[in-house]
């Protein structure tokens, strides 16, 4: 499908197309927006997100760089210092690691170390996560690294409309944004009215994707469809699950999440990245801190195993699926045995 077709807004668009459209519109609106990365020019990126940009805006606006991620991000820092708004494409999550020092030591801190004199309006697009049959090093979930780095925003869209709206917001942000694009949702399609992108609020706002009363599933990015499916399946079990899509990991929308958990009293965090040291720990700890009185059961986590990402033929065993989510929901102490146990167990 061509960009023109997407623009018409009549046909459903893929997430990849919506992202491309966001880049295009941002570049058209603001001449300081520059796209750079490996194969973003003539090829249009390995996921075709930048398709057509070099042709429309020229190679100086959408630039195939030499193959060196630290160099790309480092150059973006300098471009941002000179007033441009670079949008960097990392080809795959694991191939962002060479740029880690530039990211941590410069991108995330430049505003702070210069007392605001040198902002870093840099967007780093990272195709991330698994589930696409990618070979080794092509399916990492690296959000824990970014979350643990103060000064970054971390965004992960899960819907076609969010992909557009959040990428526009990321590019418009005066702060660096790690923009995590769930690879397995690139080809997800949705009817989406490109003429009304303003329906997506800015970075830092979670959304309730499905209201429910029994328990809250807290998720984002590639795990949203899993949670939605689990919520539908749960109806048969008598559970009415609420699904919260975080959209941003940083800033973290505590308000929306805690409001939901206070209402439901039970929560499961679902994500694809390894559980240990992953985002779920922070989320569960934070929700527990803030909502302890309202919890009928501990906040549980359903995540990838604590292993290197497996080869494609085994990845289905690693990725959290509907069954694991439902299993966790089932463990949310529906009989409230805890009420007594909590008092007895604590006896000292």
């Amino acid at each position, binding site marked *: 499908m061509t960009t023109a077709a997407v623009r018409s807004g009549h046909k459903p668009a893929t997430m990849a197309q919506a992202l491309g459209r966001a880049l295009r519109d941002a570049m058209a609106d603001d001449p300081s927006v520059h796209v750079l990365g490996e194969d973003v020019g*003539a*090829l249009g990126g390995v996921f075709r997100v930048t398709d057509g940009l070099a042709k429309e805006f020229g190679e100086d606006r959408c630039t*195939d*760089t030499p193959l060196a*991620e630290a160099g790309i991000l480092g150059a973006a820092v300098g471009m941002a210092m000179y007033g441009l708004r670079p949008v960097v494409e990392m080809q795959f999550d694991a191939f962002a690691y*060479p740029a880690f020092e530039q990211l941590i030591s410069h991108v995330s801190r430049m505003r702070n170390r210069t007392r605001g004199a040198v902002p870093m309006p840099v967007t780093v697009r990272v195709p991330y996560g698994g589930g696409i049959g990618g*070979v080794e090093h092509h399916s990492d979930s690296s959000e824990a690294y970014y979350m643990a780095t103060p000064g970054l925003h971390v965004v992960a869209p899960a819907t076609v409309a969010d992909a557009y709206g959040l990428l526009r917001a990321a590019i418009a942000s005066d702060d660096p944004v790690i923009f995590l694009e769930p690879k397995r949702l690139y080809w997800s399609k949705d009817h989406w009215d490109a003429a009304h992108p303003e329906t997506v609020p800015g970075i830092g706002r979670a959304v309730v994707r499905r209201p429910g009363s029994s328990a809250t599933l807290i998720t984002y990015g590639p795990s949203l469809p899993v949670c939605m499916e689990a919520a539908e399946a749960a109806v048969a079990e008598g559970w009415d699950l609420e699904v919260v899509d975080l959209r941003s990991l940083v800033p973290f929308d505590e308000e929306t999440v805690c409001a939901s958990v206070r209402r439901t009293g039970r929560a499961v965090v679902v994500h694809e990245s390894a559980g240990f040291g992953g985002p779920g720990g922070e989320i569960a700890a934070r929700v527990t801190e803030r909502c302890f009185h309202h919890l009928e059961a501990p906040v549980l986590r359903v995540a990838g*195993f604590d292993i*290197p990402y497996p*080869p494609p033929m085994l990845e289905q065993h690693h990725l959290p699926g509907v069954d694991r989510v439902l299993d966790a929901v089932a463990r949310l102490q529906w009989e409230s045995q805890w009420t007594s146990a909590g008092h007895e167990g604590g006896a000292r």
Partner: protein
Amino acid sequence: MTVLEQPGSYRPAPPPAWQPRTDPAPLLPDAEPYRLLGTDAAAGLDPALLKRLYGQLVRGRRYNGQATALTRQGRLAVYPSSTGQEACQVAAGLVLEERDWLFPSYRDTLATVVRGLDPVQALTLLRGDWHTGYDPHEHRIAPLCTPLATQLPHAVGLAHAARLKGDDVVALAMVGDGGTSEGDFHEALNFAAVWKAPVVFFVQNNGFAISVPLAKQTAAPSFAHKAVGYGMPGRLVDGNDAAAVHEVLSEAVRRARGGAGPTLVEAVTYRIDAHTNADDATRYRADSEIEAWRAHDPIDLLERELTGRKLIDEAGMRAEREAAERLAADLRERMNQDPALDPMDLFTHVYAEQTAQLREQADRLRAELAAAGESATQEGAQR
């Protein structure tokens, strides 16, 4: 004197008495790629070697074709073909001794097969049943490496370790033109030169890093010229001339083995196929370019030499093609079998000793699998 003391390396004494520097001129690579086939020098080449190279080239081409076909049949997740680059692959697979180590990139499965690896093992990564399909120690082939250029410092460390132990081991490390832009390329070459490690760096310049052409990758006269900045020799060779690549690599290996340190070799070749089966090369290059390179095909070049010198006849060539077909048929047949997979392997080799945490997770998966198996059995019974 320790292995690390480097007589003659950069140590300027205080002025005005500047120490004489190494004359850089001999370090400069030739401006034109070194070639043998079709030149007078080819007459001196060992016919047995030429015939061996030819057989491997023919088999290599067939291997590339078969592997690509397997992607269409869903038997490989992805295949980065080395069609057109077989001279480089074959030479790299042949120049090392058994005790030496090869450090391939993801595109170099053919080199590993030429070195003796079972093609099914070589293709495991790309089929997707495990990451590394072989025991690296068995054939002294490091895991096929996806993160670009990251295998180069490994080669340096291994070669350095072998040298420290007094072992006669050379490491040959392969990288693409695109990979030379990564910081790891730089760091590896620098370490190797400072440590005088027995390493050969082999850049297969196939004109593209996916879609990105050379002019957007470097402004250097050639990749071989990068050697100057590390104080090592750089050699430029016609990467489609199997005899020339074999000779240049062999010399570099000999040099490393003799204790003279690393060499940077650039072979100029061309990626005839798309980057992988998933790539659409029409987006970034013209067919005419491919056709021009087809006229400089590594098999044709060697075939012309062999037939011109009557070292092979039609029957001989047919025999090689038949051998290649047998290899392809065997590969096809074995790759068409589903690999045996054990999901519990996910947890087996994360650590030497499984942690309690992983044991718990393994138990959970085992229970899931058992439950799924039971319900599958029940369903089967009900039908």
